[in-house]
C-alpha cells in the first residue's frame, strides 16, 4: 500500500523560487513569447523585498554603504560587458556608459537590458541621498510598514508629474520614476510578511495594494497588455502568502542554480540569443529558433555561472594555500 503523501520534496524559500521563475519569464519573453510579461517586475519586487529585509532598517550611513556595495557588484560586470560590446561593434556611446541614456533614447549598443542597470543605479542613488535628507532610519524604526506605505503612495503619484517634462512613453517607461513603485512595493510586502502581528486583514490590504498599484501603473499610466498585470499580481500574491514551498527534489537544485545565476542570465542571454538568431535564422522555423533561444541561453548562462563561480572559488583556495605555505616557510 503506498501513499501519494510520500514523495520526495525539498523546502525552498518562495523568493528563490520566484526569482528562478521570474528570470525564466524574462528569457521566454525575449525568446519570442512576448505575451509572457512581468518577469522583470517580479525580480524588481523581490529586489525591493530583499533591500527592505537586509538594509532598510539600518542607519543612514550603513544603508548608503550597502547601496554602494550592491552597485559595485552590479556595475563592474555591467560596465565591462558594455565595454566589450562597444569594442565588438566598434561603437561608443558615452551616455550609455555614463548610465543615463535611458533618459534620451531606447537604442543601445550592449546586447543586454542596459536600461535596467541604469534605472537601478539611478534609483539607488536617489534612495541613498533621500535617506540622508529625510532620515529614513528614524522612520523605518518607528514603523517600516507605515514608512513603506507612504513611500509607495508617493512613488505611485509621482510619474504623471514627471511626465509633464519627460516623454516617458517614448522611452518605454524605462525610467526610475516608473520603476520606483515596483521596488518600494517590495518594502511593503516585506513589512507585511515580517510583521509579528500579521492578520488576514493586513494580508488582504497588502494584496489589494499590490493589485491596485500594478493596475494603476500598468493599465492606467502605461496602458499595456493585461498579461503583465495578471502575471505580476499572481506571483506577488504567492510571495505574500508563502514563505517557503516544497518542490520535488529533482527540481530543487535546478531552481537554486537559476536563482543564483539570475544576474548572469540577465547580462548574457541577450548576446547568446543574438548569436543563435544569426546562426539559425536561415535554417530553422521561427518556433524552433524561439525554443532554442530559451533553452540554450538559460543553459549556457547557468553553465557560465557555475564555471565562473567555481574558477573564482578555486583561485581563492589556491591563493589562501600559497599564503599559508609562505607563512609556514
Amino acid at each position, binding site marked *: 500500500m503506498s501513499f501519494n503523501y510520500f514523495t520526495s520534496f525539498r523546502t525552498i524559500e518562495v523568493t*528563490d523560487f520566484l526569482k528562478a521563475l521570474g528570470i525564466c519569464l524574462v528569457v521566454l519573453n525575449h525568446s519570442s513569447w512576448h505575451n509572457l510579461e512581468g518577469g522583470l517586475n517580479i525580480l524588481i519586487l523581490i529586489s525591493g523585498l530583499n533591500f527592505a529585509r537586509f*538594509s532598510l532598517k539600518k542607519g543612514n550611513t550603513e544603508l548608503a554603504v550597502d547601496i554602494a556595495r550592491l552597485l559595485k557588484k552590479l556595475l563592474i560586470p555591467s560596465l565591462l560587458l558594455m565595454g566589450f560590446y562597444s569594442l565588438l561593434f566598434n561603437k561608443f556611446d558615452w551616455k550609455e556608459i555614463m548610465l543615463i541614456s535611458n533618459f534620451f533614447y531606447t537604442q543601445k549598443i550592449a546586447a543586454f537590458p542596459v536600461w535596467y542597470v541604469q534605472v537601478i543605479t539611478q534609483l539607488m542613488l536617489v534612495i541613498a541621498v533621500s535617506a540622508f535628507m529625510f532620515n529614513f532610519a528614524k522612520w523605518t524604526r518607528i514603523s517600516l510598514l507605515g514608512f513603506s506605505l507612504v513611500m509607495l503612495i508617493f512613488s505611485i503619484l509621482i510619474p504623471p508629474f514627471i511626465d509633464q517634462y519627460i516623454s516617458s512613453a517614448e522611452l518605454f517607461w524605462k525610467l526610475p520614476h516608473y520603476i520606483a513603485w515596483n521596488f518600494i512595493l517590495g518594502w511593503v510586502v516585506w513589512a507585511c510578511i515580517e510583521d509579528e502581528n500579521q492578520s488576514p486583514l493586513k494580508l488582504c490590504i497588502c494584496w489589494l495594494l499590490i493589485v491596485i498599484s500594478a493596475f494603476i501603473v500598468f493599465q492606467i499610466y502605461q496602458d499595456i497588455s493585461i498579461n503583465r498585470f495578471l502575471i505580476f499580481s499572481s506571483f506577488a500574491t504567492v510571495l505574500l502568502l508563502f514563505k517557503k514551498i516544497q518542490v520535488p527534489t529533482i527540481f530543487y*537544485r535546478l531552481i537554486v542554480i537559476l536563482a543564483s545565476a539570475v544576474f548572469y542570465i540577465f547580462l548574457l542571454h541577450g548576446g547568446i540569443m543574438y548569436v543563435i538568431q544569426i546562426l539559425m535564422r536561415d535554417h530553422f522555423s521561427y518556433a524552433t529558433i524561439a525554443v532554442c533561444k530559451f533553452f540554450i541561453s538559460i543553459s549556457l548562462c547557468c553553465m557560465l555561472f557555475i564555471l565562473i563561480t*567555481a*574558477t573564482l572559488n*578555486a583561485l581563492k583556495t589556491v591563493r589562501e*594555500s600559497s599564503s599559508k605555505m609562505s607563512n609556514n616557510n
Partner: protein
Amino acid sequence: MPTLFSHIYTFRHNTAVINDSGEHYSYAKLYADAIVCTEQLGQESKLVFINARNNYSTVVAYVACMLGGHPVLLVAADNPQQLEELVNSYQPNFIVNTLTDTPEFKVYNSKTVQLHNELCLLLSTSGSTGSPKLVKISHSNIISNSDAIIRYLEVTTTDRAITSLPIHYSYGLSILNIHLRVGASIVLTDLSVTNENFWKIYKQFSVTSFSGVPYSFQALLSVNFDFSSAPSTRYVTQAGGKLSQNVILHFANQLKLTNKLFFIMYGQTEASPRISYLPPDQVFEHSDCIGIAIYGGSLTLHDDKEKEITDSGVAGELIYRGPNIMMGYALGQNDFASMEYMEALHTGDIALRKSNGLFKIIGRVSRFVKPFGIRVNLDDIQNNLSNTDAIVAVTGNDEKILVVIQTENETLISSISHQISLSYTLPLEVFQIEMVSTIPRLSNDKFDYKYLLKLFVEDVKQKSNTRLFLDEFKKEVLILLGVAAQPWNSVADIYSSILNNPTCDDLSTFRSLSGDSLSYVAVSSALNQYLGNLPDNWHNMSIQSLQDLRYGNEF
C-alpha cells in the same frame, strides 16, 4: 505493566490540555478519547508512527499509544521526506494523521511486527548508517526519567506548561510527559516564541514554565524580552545545546529579580533524554557547567584506559549510569524485538568535575567526529570494516574519515568503498581510503591514529598550484551542481567564505556582514546544507546562535 500515563484517570477533573483557541480538555476527556483510539489499535502491540503537531489530536494519539503499550514514534508533520524514509525503513503498522480533532489511524502494514514488551517509545537520532537510526526507550526508562525531572523541577498539578517546542522533539515531548504524569496541564500552540500572540496566550492561561533551546533564548534576547512581563512564570528551563554564558547570565539576572528559577539542563536522546541539570542557585557562578546527575543517575569520568577519574579538574570522557539509559538502537524493524542492557552511556563528551562536584563539558572524545553534524563513532566503522579480509584502521576529524587498509591486495579498496557506500549516509568524499603494507602501531599495540591522520590527511601534500586549482575547480563544480556537498567547518566559515568577509565574529549576522540579495541564495543554500533546517529569521540570527542549532543531538 505500568506505563507513563496508566494513572491519569485519577486526575479526571483536572484540565489536561488547553489549545490556543482556549478550549479546555480535561483528563477525563483525554483519557476517554485515548481509550477509543486504543480500541482501533487492538490488543496486540502495534508499531505506530504519528505525524505530530502541537495539537490535541497528537496528544490523544500519543497517550493512546502509551496507554495501550504500542511503541510510538513522533515525526514532524511538516517533514514528509523524513516520514517517508522512516516508514520505508521500519514499516510501521499504523500511521496517524493528526490534522483533524480526532486522530486518524491508517493501516500501513498489516503484518505483525515483533516488538519487545518493554519498548514504548522511539526517538530519532542522527546516524551515519544507511537507514535513519532510532533510539529505543522502554517504559521504565521514560518513567524513571520523567519522575527524576519532576523531582528537581518540583512540578505539581498546579503547574502549566506551553509547547514552546515541537512535541516530536524529545525535549518538547519530555515537557508533555512530565506535566501529564503529575496531572498538570499544558497549553498547545504552534506559535513561535517571538510572536507576540505566543506571550498573549502564555499570560492568558497563566503558564508557569517556559522551556527553550539556545535559539529560543537568542530570539528572545533579540526582541529584548523580559520575563517580568510574564508574572505567572515559576521556572524556565534550557536544554538542546550549549547556550552562551552571557545569554545565560542575562536571563538569570532577569529571572532572579522576580524570584523565578532558571534550570540549565543537559542530556542525550539515548538517556530518554535528561542526564543532568544545574541547580538554579549555581547558575551565576557556574553558568559554564551542566551541573549534577538527575535523581537515580550518576556521572563519572573515565580516561583513555577506561579507568575512573576521581580527581577534580582532570578531564575525561563523561559516562552516565542510570535507569533511563535506552534499550539500544534500532536500524531496522527486526531490532524492535530485542533489548540491549546498557550499563553505562558513553556520552562522547569530554568533561571535568569541579571541586564543588559540578561537571563541565570541555570538548568531544576523539573517537567521535562530526562530519556534516552527524555524530560518527570511528570505532563502530572500524569494527564494521574489519569484518573483511584485511586489517583496517579508521581515524579522522570533522572533515575527513580516514580508512587505512593493511593489505597488498588492491581489489580490497573497491570492496571496502562499496561497503562504505552501502552502509553510511555520509557522502563518499568524506571517506579517504589508503592502502599500506603495515599499519603503524604504538607500543601498546594500538594503531597509531595520530600518525596516520598526520600522514594522510593533515600534512598537505605539496601540490602544484595548477594541480590544486584543477582539483578545487572540479570540487567546486560538483558542489554547485549539487552532486557533492561542501564540507563547511562552521557557520563562520560559510559567512567568511561566501560573503568574503573575514572579520565575522560570534555576534555577526548576515545583515551586519552586509549580506544582500546577490549573496542570499548562496548563503541560505549553504546554511541549509550545514544545519539541515533553517529557521525563517536566520538572517537576523548571530553566527553563534546558528552554530548552536547544529548540535541537535545534545539535550
